[in-house]
């Protein structure tokens, strides 16, 4: 095991504290001065079904996850089966020996299809599908297996009165950290930082940490020694939280939502941070208390309608949703378009169509985001690929919405939403807030849709000016008109703003080119694939394979010239996306005429990893036109 590049999975039943275990691991390693990144995977279920947490720890910033993993911690009898192929020679499995006799067919929480696939695998391996036998098989291929009786260790430590199931998450996490060589006091700090205010819980869990470390010592199974690095203050946030933070820094004042996975956690997080104190000027002691109004609407139609109309009072407003909710918002999106209303919609993609894979990843809503709503209207569509980008993009979304007076769709995905990132503080001085153009005169009659050179009319607000808005085609005042000339002029006015946006938005917000800019192999991708691709590129480079990566950030207005420029001279263009139809490649073709000729796609709802991108690119270079990535449990 490499000392400073560790992939760890902790698996157990949904509702069994996997989330806290994840936090303990990430926080402990952060306190120890390491970098980490982790992802939660779970079913659309509250209690019982398999869930797991995959984290990678390094000295350098972590951008992706990787298989095979170094360590698997199984809190139940299902995890050893589900993740049997995630480990390899040299990996470690820590498992609860109380489940030793669990047979595959006894795992009732497992879906029948998964059971069937696993049964077939066991048949071909000629291994009995029982945890015990599985562990023998793992040993036979060089995996180190560490059985731990969770029940015994917990009751020996805390007595009979505490339910062992409540502590197995910390125990599993502690054993793994003890084996990885993290000092016990740091693991305890990690525990304290997760369970913070609950004194008894912290104390109990600290006892569990001690027991775990003693157990590992007594068996002499420590596999690593980590040199604790310098601690510095960091923030641990999910992608949902990053967007929430970005929105608040960017001046969000009114957010609406209807609960849906994986978007709702953003609004839920905001509800916990909706009243606070802030200084209005630099070097100004004067603090004021202020708030953000967050409304749980009766449905997504209402949510977007409220956000749209709220923006017409001068507030920065936003909504957040996912596929099914976004489908309901389509009509209102066009309303914001024709009425030139600055509204921000954060779209967390999940597996579709319909309810699809509600808790799994996808990038299949790109074309819908670009086209949702009837009729022609301008919109800005941006996409983020990690937590830091998400923070700044949330601010930019507001700036664009107000500057160009149109709806902005900020695309995220499930992997981004549910990953844990450890980031530095974003200084408020780095957040630039740019707002609308206001009318220059208070005395002239106000024309909400005044024709101007740029197509951008001075913004007016309810409570300030008198004007009208209508979903019908309208004149400059905002009254209904079906006059053909005015219709043409209004259509052109609205669409012209996209050209202005195209000119003004800086290149780095349109796309980034990584790697070897002149390489003949070009990769195009977007969103959460950024990290795994960057990591895979380094591996390829080490082998002498040069690549360039055109990472797309702005999809509307589409930066055709810039994309064409970035792809110039490429012999092989590989599109990597989490959807079936290679949507970004279709967009590139539509706007630049460039044919992407190789495809690496994934639509099983699971995250893309460094190793599978690496492997898939190799397959493409060996002549395959299309690779479907299938990893992930």
């Amino acid at each position: 095991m490499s000392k400073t590049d560790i992939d760890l999975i902790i698996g157990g039943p949904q509702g069994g504290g996997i989330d806290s275990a994840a936090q303990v691991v990430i926080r402990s390693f952060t306190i120890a001065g390491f970098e980490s990144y982790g992802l939660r995977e779970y079913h659309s279920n509250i209690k019982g079904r398999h869930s797991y947490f995959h984290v990678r720890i390094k000295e350098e910033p972590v951008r992706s996850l990787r298989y095979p993993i170094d360590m698997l911690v199984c809190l139940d009898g299902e995890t050893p089966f589900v993740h049997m192929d995630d480990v390899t020679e040299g990996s470690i499995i820590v498992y609860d020996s109380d489940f030793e006799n669990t047979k595959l067919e006894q795992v009732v929480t497992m879906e029948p299809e998964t059971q069937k696939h696993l049964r077939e695998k066991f048949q071909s391996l000629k291994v009995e599908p029982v945890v015990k036998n599985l562990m023998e098989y793992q040993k036979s291929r060089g995996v180190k297996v560490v059985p731990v009786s969770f029940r015994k260790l917990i009751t020996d430590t805390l007595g009979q009165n505490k339910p062992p199931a409540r502590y197995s998450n910390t125990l599993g996490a502690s054993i793994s950290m003890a084996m990885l060589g993290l000092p016990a006091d740091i693991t305890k700090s990690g525990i304290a930082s997760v369970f913070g205010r609950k004194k008894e819980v912290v104390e109990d869990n600290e006892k569990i940490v001690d027991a775990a470390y003693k157990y590992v010592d007594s068996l002499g199974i420590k596999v690593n020694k980590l040199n604790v690095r310098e601690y510095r203050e960091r923030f641990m946030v999910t992608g949902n939280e990053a967007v929430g933070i970005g929105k608040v820094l960017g001046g969000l004042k009114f957010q609406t939502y209807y609960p849906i996975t994986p978007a709702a956690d953003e609004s839920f997080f905001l509800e916990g941070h909706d009243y606070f104190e802030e200084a209005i000027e630099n070097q100004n002691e004067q603090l004021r208390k202020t708030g953000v109004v967050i409304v749980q609407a009766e449905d997504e139609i209402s949510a977007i309608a409220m956000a749209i109309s709220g923006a017409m009072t001068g507030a920065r407003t936003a909504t957040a949703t996912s596929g099914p909710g976004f489908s309901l918002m389509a009509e209102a999106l066009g309303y914001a378009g024709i009425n030139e209303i600055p509204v921000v919609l954060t779209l967390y993609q999940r597996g579709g169509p319909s309810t699809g894979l509600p808790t799994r990843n996808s990038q299949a809503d790109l074309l819908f985001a670009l086209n949702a709503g009837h009729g022609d209207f301008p919109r800005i569509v941006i996409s983020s690929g990690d937590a830091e980008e998400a923070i700044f993009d949330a601010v930019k979304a507001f700036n664009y919405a107000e500057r160009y007076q149109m709806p902005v769709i900020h695309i995220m995905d499930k992997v981004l939403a549910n990953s844990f990132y450890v980031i530095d503080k974003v200084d408020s001085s780095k957040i630039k807030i740019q707002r609308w153009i206001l009318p220059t005169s208070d005395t002239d009659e106000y024309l909400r849709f005044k024709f101007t050179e740029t197509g951008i009319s001075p913004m007016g607000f309810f409570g300030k000016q008198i004007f009208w808005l209508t979903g019908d085609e309208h004149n400059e005042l905002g009254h209904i008109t079906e006059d053909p000339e005015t219709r043409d002029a209004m259509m052109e006015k609205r669409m012209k703003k996209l050209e202005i946006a195209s000119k003004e938005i800086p290149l780095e917000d349109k796309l980034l080119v990584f790697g070897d800019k002149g390489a003949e192999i070009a990769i195009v991708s977007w969103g959460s694939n950024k990290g795994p691709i960057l990591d895979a590129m380094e591996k390829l480079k080490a082998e002498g394979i040069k690549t360039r990566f055109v990472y797309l950030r702005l999809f509307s207005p589409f930066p055709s010239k810039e994309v064409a420029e970035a792809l110039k001279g490429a012999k092989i263009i590989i599109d990597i996306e989490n959807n079936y139809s290679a949507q970004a490649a279709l967009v590139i073709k539509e706007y630049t005429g460039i044919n992407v000729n190789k495809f690496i796609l994934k639509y099983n709802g699971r995250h893309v990893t460094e190793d599978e991108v690496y492997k898939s690119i190799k397959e493409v270079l060996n002549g395959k036109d299309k690779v479907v990535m299938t990893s992930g449990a």
Partner: protein
Amino acid sequence: MAHNFKTDLWVDWCPGCGDFGILAAIQQALAEYNAKPENYVIVSGIGCSAKTPHYVNVSGIHTLHGRAIPFATGIKLSNPNLTVILDGGDGDLLSIGAGHFVAAGRRNVDFTIILHNNGVYGLTKGQASPTLPRGTKTKGLQRPNIYDSLNPIALALSVGYTFVARAYAFNIRHAKDIILRAIKHKGTAVIDLLQPCPTYNDINTKEWYDQRIYYLDQDKEWDPIVRKPEEEEVERKYLQAINKSLEWGDKIPVGVFYQNEFVPTYEERIKQNFPNYFEDPPATSQISKKDGSAVADMENIFKDKIVRK
């Protein structure tokens, strides 16, 4: 000079349409209420009735079919200091927008809903609306209506509206008085505004209403107002209103059915967590410093996200 509440547009309703009366009543009520003209916003959905905002010289937002309530809610909650009035058809508010109509009762945002009740979908040429009784055959229908009708007053009461009234489009002065009372009411007010549609509804005509309507406030005994914040008083007034709402046919009551100002508005509920909400509402709250940088500070607001040693 007094503000002119009429715009100079030609009003494009059919001659004899009840909406003319409602429009006049609104214009008079706004003049009499006397807020700053910029502080009014009229919100509508889609339908004949939904054109109302264009004819009133205050800000207007003509929105989507069925969605006037959420649009109005967004405006009022972003700037609780505005006076918001909503116009919607019976199809708009009670069919496609019925979910919002129910949610609005539970929120009690301080605005006024004027329900243009004409029994039909005017703008789509006379299909049955949710208030048209089963068995009725208006002239736009191929055969008698096979849906049961709903009772807007009883529905509003049952989902928590705190001001429920009925008015009649062709008694402008009375309708104006009811609208004014609704605007002054603290909480969501709904007015079931009986609106003849001479083009498509040949049953509920002006003559039909003129023969049946009577005024609740002419009855000295009638007291629709909840006088004390006590359960028993609320229940008595509520049941009285429900009972009254069942009267339809030969005699149709018009006036205020129920009013309860003891229910906190949604804005007051927000204020519980956000004490200076009315003084520093979303609409006008400062978000950037003079140099354009953010006022909000990550370390201060999101300190719980810091990984501390």
